């Protein structure tokens, strides 16, 4: 059991990276990675919410009736997000300012609802927590890598420190939405190459090609 929990945790980092493989949570990924520090703030906040919601949902999985599971998940997630929001605003106001609108928007971050639906509601508390940590690390690392690339190229700094000398004009476009899409595409390509080298990519079409296929009960029936 311990072995498989470890595997669950590692899964989230590359093999099932929520952003680059499952392509969930794209909006905060693109919007908040113009600076590395914002990326880490968002990653940590989302991980905290994900951990809380995964644990709570796997604890309540036998109590919550199937019919109202989505509203229940949403209420739980929204509650955790608001609590995290209060805590961040009180103890880390500068990160709160930087995250702005995207902090409350964690509520609708698909990663959290996605993991609740795909994993937490059919696995044990420990496995769900491992899944949350793995996914959170994967999300945070992706954001950190994107944020670092964009900040270094776009502003010449990294976590606010001057990395590229002032004399070099930074590529401002990198801190803007087009630069975000550009880096996002490149990172997805890189992860695809890594997965292909490991022989993980299978040539399937239709529902089977969906990265969520193995968790989706309807993958064999088609029509997500």
């Amino acid at each position, binding site marked *: 059991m311990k072995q498989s929990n470890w595997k669950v945790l590692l899964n989230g980092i590359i093999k099932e990276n929520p952003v680059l493989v499952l392509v969930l949570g794209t909006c905060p990924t693109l919007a908040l990675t*113009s600076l590395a520090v914002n990326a880490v703030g968002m990653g940590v906040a989302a991980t905290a919410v994900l951990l809380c919601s995964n644990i709570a949902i796997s604890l309540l999985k036998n109590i919550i*009736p199937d*019919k109202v599971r989505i509203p229940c998940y949403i*209420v739980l997630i929204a*509650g955790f997000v*608001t609590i995290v929001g209060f805590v961040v605003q009180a103890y880390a106001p500068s990160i709160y*300012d930087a995250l702005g609108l995207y902090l409350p928007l964690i509520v609708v971050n698909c990663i959290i609802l996605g993991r609740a639906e795909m994993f937490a509601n059919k696995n044990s508390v420990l496995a769900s927590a491992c899944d949350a940590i793995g996914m959170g690390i994967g999300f945070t690392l992706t954001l950190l890598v994107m944020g670092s690339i964009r900040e270094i190229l776009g502003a010449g700094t990294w976590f606010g420190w001057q990395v590229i000398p002032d004399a070099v004009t930074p590529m401002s476009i990198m*801190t803007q939405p087009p630069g975000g899409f550009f880096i996002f595409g490149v990172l997805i390509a890189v992860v695809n190459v890594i997965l292909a080298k490991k022989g993980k990519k299978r040539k399937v079409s239709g529902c089977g090609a969906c990265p969520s296929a193995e968790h989706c009960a309807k993958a064999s029936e088609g029509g997500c």
Partner: protein
Amino acid sequence: MKLVKEFLIPVAVLTVICLVVSAALAFTYQATAPIIEEAKNAKANEARAVVLEGAAGFEKMNVAMTDGGVDCYRETAGAGYVITVTTSGYGGAFNMMVGIKADGTISGIQMMDHSETPGFGAKLAEESYAATYKGKSSADFSDVAGVAGATITSGAYKKGLGTAFEIHGSASGNAVEVPASGSMTLEDAQAQLFPDVAEFTETALDDDITVYQAGDQGYVAVRKAVGYHEEEPMLLAVGLDNSGKILAVIMLENHETQGLGTQVADAAYLDQYIGKDSTDGVTAVAGATVSSDGVKSAVKKILEQFPNFPGQGAKMDETVLAAILPGAAGFEEPAAAYEGADQVLFSTVRSGMAVSAADGEVKLAVGFNGNGVITGVSLLAYPEADEAALAAAQEYAAQFVGQASADAVGASDISYADSIKNAVGLACTVFEAAKGELG
């Protein structure tokens, strides 16, 4: 039993979850609210101390806020004021905290909560840009250069400073004259439109339009535009070339509502007029319909008056009149207006008539004797400047002399022959209509 399982349990579970989550939220809020409030105040006071050097503490002042004012704090020892204003930049509204010392000069500026574009508008939030305003007073802050590539943010920044100075004026008791937003003097506007022209000839026209002729290069027409505030109209300067095309529309005075009506002073709106000779297709600014309409109708009125601008609408002068109605001693205006003609003049003894009529870009002066026979035709405006073409056109026009109708002369293969014929025909029609006035 089925009822309980299907409906009651889901409802009960969801309700319980909602209640538990709400309780947790209420608890967290109670615990964090004072800390959040304290952090906010500390941050605001810290920012206030940054923009006003040597400040010890602040007290809030209750002064009348003009549009865009947020709050005004006085330094407890009287070192100056810190005024927060809101202004609308490229990425939406942002707040600015402006520190004004006791002597009325800027001590520091902080741009807060802004979402301007990084690398462009966000540059204005940097310390180094705010420093360029240090020591400026209400009289000279508008001379500070903006940031290239961030025109809108730079404009918003200055607008915010103007508001801050206004509030400072009422807070400190010595009201200051702040140039209206989007403001530019007439001289600046003239220099921008016609940089090589030193002397402008002023002419007052109908509709409260004042025209400044820039030598032979064009015109600057100035007119009021009534927007949202009827008692305080905007003042527009419209640059026009000699053909009546708009070179630029410049806002000289703008007293519209901050952030809404003031948007009509933005290049995004005014640049729509460039190159046009009508106001068709100019779209209003959302949220500033009344101001937009005011600007549009003022520009329209100026364009309508364009033919009356000095040097425009070639008139029949003495030379032309002598050529087309030889022997007439003097001329007088008709008693009635005649449709179709640009101008109608009768010889003082009412024995003949001179009519100017146009077809397209061709404009002619035609002389008639009392019987309606054409005594002379002269070209007032002709699209081709080439001498040979002009001579050919003049020769063709001369064929109408001695005729009583345009149809008596056949077509010609010279360009614009049809226009010449149509214009003569039009002049004949006007003659028929006006001949009752002849002696």
